[in-house]
């Protein structure tokens, strides 16, 4: 069990560092890094504090702390993925609306140019 907990603690540190570097280089915006930080820090705390992990396992009715930890990790990352699906969907809607607006404005501009050309 200790090996798994150490691995998960290391993994959470790697995630924190990756997100920090990505934010620093502007690869991820700060508001989108919050979910990853939250998930990674929860993972770190749970993997380093046995008392909390045992309490979570008991609360979930699970006899095994590692299973409880994996369940919590899975749920956390599912939540993060869901949040990003919502964000991506909103971005796609905005993108489509913007692309349509640009095309329509370009169409209007071309029509005005054409009318001006015909007048001149």
């Amino acid at each position, binding site marked *: 069990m200790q090996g798994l907990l150490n691995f998960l603690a290391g993994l959470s540190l790697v995630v924190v560092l990756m997100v920090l570097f990505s934010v620093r280089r502007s690869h991820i915006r700060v508001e989108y890094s919050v979910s990853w930080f939250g998930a990674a820090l929860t993972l770190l705390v749970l993997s380093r504090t046995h008392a909390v992990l045992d309490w979570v396992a008991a609360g979930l009715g699970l006899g095994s702390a590692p299973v409880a930890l994996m369940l919590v990790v899975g749920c956390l990352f599912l939540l993060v993925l869901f949040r990003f699906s919502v964000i991506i969907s909103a971005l796609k809607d905005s993108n*489509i609306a913007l692309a349509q607006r640009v*095309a*329509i404005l370009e*169409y209007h501009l071309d029509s005005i140019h054409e*009318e001006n050309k015909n007048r001149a």
Partner: protein
Amino acid sequence: MTARGPLVIIIPAFNEEPAIARVVAEVREIVPGVPVLVIDDCSIDGTANAARRAGAEVLPLPCHLGLGGAVQAGYRLAYELGYEYVIRVDGDGQHDPVFIPKIYEALRSSSCEMVIGSRFVDGAGGYSSLLRGFGIRLFRLILRPILGKPVRDPTSGFVGVNRSALQVFSSSFPLEYPEIEALVVLQRKAFRFMEVPCAMRPRMAGRSTITAVKSLYYIFHVLMGVFVNVLKYEGRRRHR
């Protein structure tokens, strides 16, 4: 620019250079004087230029939006320009423009917000493959209780809409495989539709990109879209 008459024909097109000029020419021959608007969905071939040379106006999208996004762009522009009726014709030549006057007449004379050019109203149409036939039959069954009336050809893209539907579609239109979901969107607004018999032709050029796997994805995707739209359902249905 403003509307030049009550009707505009919109043709969404993506890489349809070999067919688009003939489609535009046929439409202009059948309904002379009616503006033809080709929505070029960021084609990488010469679709836009071919359409312009054939006498169409072109709405060039800056990036590829897919069929629903392209059709909605056309609806938005038509709505802004003040058109009363819009008829959509596909850019691959499968929709025979000879049926445009029939759809237009049905739009004007009925109180329906949408008129569908249907392959199956008079029982003359056939299914291009077993899987597609299965899909169409399945959607007929599913849509029957949702729409409150049968629809024979729910996957037909040969449709005309009036200004009320145009207003709805300008703000809310399904993006992928829009035909079936669009019916549910209209139903949510208590709008009505009817079908008129039309014959479809083979593509003028190129090959359909719809494979068996894509057909299965299509069925699953549209089923999800229908149920999501039903869950969003608001208002009272109007049966006709």
